[in-house]
């Protein structure tokens, strides 16, 4: 792999806190190596800002290996930037070339209010999980793990749905700010497994109700969520959730 260095212009969203108005500020960075990660480029910029006596840019990040789901930047209009099936922390600077201008914003979504600069509040996702994204089993209740054979395909599909990292890119990229991909991934995982059966109906009804309460929008099948999902979670999960929801709605007396 050929390495090269580049000079870049960055336009970054700055917002002091939840109450303040924000704006795009322009910064220059020089001699950025194509081998750096995108967040390491931000580290360089922040060091530059601190030395110059300015406040560094706040952004969420933790594992920097694409699994914790904490990083969340809208880069040149795309959630997590130009690469597919990728998180911001795994984006590397070889995706850009010398002289580029890069626009970096926080997740664009009313349901994820800005905390500071590029950080947003995604606690709505936790509350959706609280509404039913679990199996009600207390520690100590379990039978032997192999008492419950599970069809390999169902187990594999459940795993694929469960690989959601909860980053919120699906919501950020959706014109309707819909959280259907996130919610359906958890509903699917637990609906596909026999362990999830006892709470199958109440789960989908409660999680969808909470999703609506959090002001997430509806799904109009644009599939943008799937296209931007770092883990490639399929929209087939949304179809499965709709089926579960319909089924539960018919079965539930109200």
């Amino acid at each position, binding site marked *: *792999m050929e390495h090269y260095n580049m000079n870049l212009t960055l336009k970054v969203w700055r917002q002091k*806190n939840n109450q303040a108005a924000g704006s795009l500020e322009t910064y220059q960075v020089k001699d950025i*190596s194509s*081998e*750096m*990660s995108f967040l*390491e480029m931000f*580290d*360089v910029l922040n*060091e530059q*800002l*601190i*030395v110059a*006596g*300015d*406040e*560094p840019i706040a952004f969420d990040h*933790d*594992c*920097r*290996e694409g*699994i*914790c*789901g*904490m990083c969340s930047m809208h880069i040149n209009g795309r959630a997590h930037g130009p690469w597919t099936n*990728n998180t911001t922390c*795994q984006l590397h600077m070889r995706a850009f070339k010398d002289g580029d201008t890069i626009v970096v914003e926080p997740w664009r979504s009313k349901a994820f209010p800005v*905390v*500071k600069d590029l950080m947003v*509040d*995604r*606690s709505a*996702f*936790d509350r959706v*999980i*609280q*509404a039913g*994204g*679990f*199996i*009600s*089993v*207390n*520690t*100590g*209740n*379990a*039978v*032997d*793990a192999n008492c*419950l*054979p*599970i*069809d*390999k395909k169902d187990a594999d599909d459940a*795993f694929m749905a*469960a*690989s959601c990292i*909860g980053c919120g890119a699906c919501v950020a990229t959706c014109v309707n700010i819909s959280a259907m991909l996130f919610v359906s991934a958890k509903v699917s995982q637990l609906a596909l*497994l026999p362990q999830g059966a006892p709470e199958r109906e109440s789960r989908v009804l409660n999680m969808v109700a909470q999703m609506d309460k959090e002001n997430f929008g509806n799904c109009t099948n644009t599939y943008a969520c799937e296209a931007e999902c770092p883990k490639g979670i399929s929209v087939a999960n949304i179809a499965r959730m709709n089926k579960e929801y319909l089924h539960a709605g018919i079965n539930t007396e109200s």
Partner: protein
Amino acid sequence: MAFDSKIPNGEMNEKWNDYKGHVKLVNPANKRKLEVIVVGTGLAGASAAASLGEMGYKVKAFCFQDSPRRAHSIAAQGGINAAKNYQNDGDSVFRLFYDTVKGGDYRAREANVHRLAEVSTSIIDHCVAQGVPFAREYGGLLSNRSFGGTQVQRTFYAAGQTGQQLLLGAYSALERQIALGNVTMYARHEMLDVVMIEDKARGIIARNLVTGELEKHFGHAVLLCTGGYGNVFYLSTNAMGSNVTAAWKAHKKGAFFGNPCFTQIHPTCIPVSGDYQSKLTLMSESLRNDGRIWVPKKKEDNRKAVDIPEEERDYYLERRYPAFGNLVPRDVASRAAKERCDEGYGVGTTKLAVYLDFADAIVRYGKIEAGKMGDHTASEATLIQLGKDVVKEKYGNLFAMYEKITGENPYDMPMRIYPAVHYVMGGLWVDYELQTTVKGLYALGEANFSDHGANRLGASALMQGLADGYFVIPYTLGNYLADEIRTASISTDHPAFAETQKAVSDRINTLMNIKGKQTVESFHKRLGLIMWDKCGMARNEKGLTEAIADIQALKKEFWSDVRIPGEINSMNPELDKAGRVADFIELGELMCKDALVRNESCGGHFREESQTEDGEAKRDDENFSFVSAWEYMGESDWKLNKEELNFEIVKPSQRSYK
């Protein structure tokens, strides 16, 4: 100070059962009145908070991330061990216990390890009941793989994302307890001190990282589940936020620190590419099942790997350790890579890397696949294509991650790898009940020192975190809290809370008022270099003595010249980081002191003065069969307490992988 490991009497395999049969219980009405603080929401913290909430305690859980689901347990790739013996290959609780004690190079406490092996099976049952989607066979039963050179297949896994799936299971259980009102969650909060009343831990001071406000929280007991401190080396496979602060504050309040120098340096990580590097990424140990490790036989060989003919390659692990070859334990593989690179045989631009080559495995798998199709005349190209498909099925996500980071395709050219700091076996000293030397203060998971001795085997960190949280603390905490039922909740207006809060606030003010010239990050990098060079894969008396002086000087410089921008009373990630780096600096000094005292090589700790004639590690059981439990006496001043290790069952022998 009282210092008792409280190992129950009786036969090794009866201790835990016997303990559970006689432990004090708290009745349900009293549980409702007892408050427990859990700091950290990784595998240990989330499982403990959820289980204690289920039992009826009033729990408050804290994490510095924006959600408990982000904790770094999520990044564990390989798997979780359990003595299920589903493969009928001779596994048992005893074998898992034995392998763990031996793998830890005889520096772990036998009774704790035996308990760990006993509860390992319940962990798998519970996680499956929670809906954790482990890998399965076509018959619908759970699949296992082998790991870390053990002779049985006891590792359960979910592709290369086992930690993620286990953590999300524990997170779901935690969120359920939050919804039920049994647990109150404080995300984006960082614990900055323990509050002591009389001689017991009675709460914490936490900083709300969004508003900058300091908060006082009472608990009848405090559980630290705050992970490891590998980031003292600056570069490690830990998350950016992983830190020692909570454990360090506890240490300064009287909790002994156990074996601080025991660091695991993992052999297969993606090498450093430049000085901007912020973290290192692990490539799962499972790759060593199929990859062959080599360097060129000629120094400074700048040809491409594929252009170096077979006879000019040195498969040094196979050469030095014919019995185990590429599957030697982590500590041995790491040191061997360092030795080759130090001698000038390293590859890549920095020359600090060795090759991990899948070419042979690809052809081998290709032949098997062609054989299955009855094609015995397949061309080399067909074999390679068939083999690549098999390798992709096994390691696809790891290969993709490697390609994203390096821009190189590992199917066509060997990976470049180098050892990196991955895990710390050291941590807060705890007794059998996971209680530190401070009453009412507990440490679980990687934050404690107890189960892995001087070297952790693969797939046993997840096991320990969940064992502590799901199946140990629910019993052992009751033994303490049963005597606390008469203690009414203490108001946070108590002077001890105000005093501790003031001390925390004063320290923050001091930091902010330094207004120096150098960034927090630059100090952290310098600390990391000192630690890596002198307290890393190999240590000696001269280097460690120098490191102690270097760190003391760095500390002085930090406290007189660090620059922290921003304000105290608002979100300020640089201030958060400054507090953590200040604690890392103090910890670094203790690690070097500990390494200096331990004049033997064991596990991840290789002391150059203690090696065999052919350069292998030489353990010294006669003089060092103890846990170093360091007591904080004052600035740069520690007292060494020793917990003697008695091996009743697994008799120590020198490990050999030749």
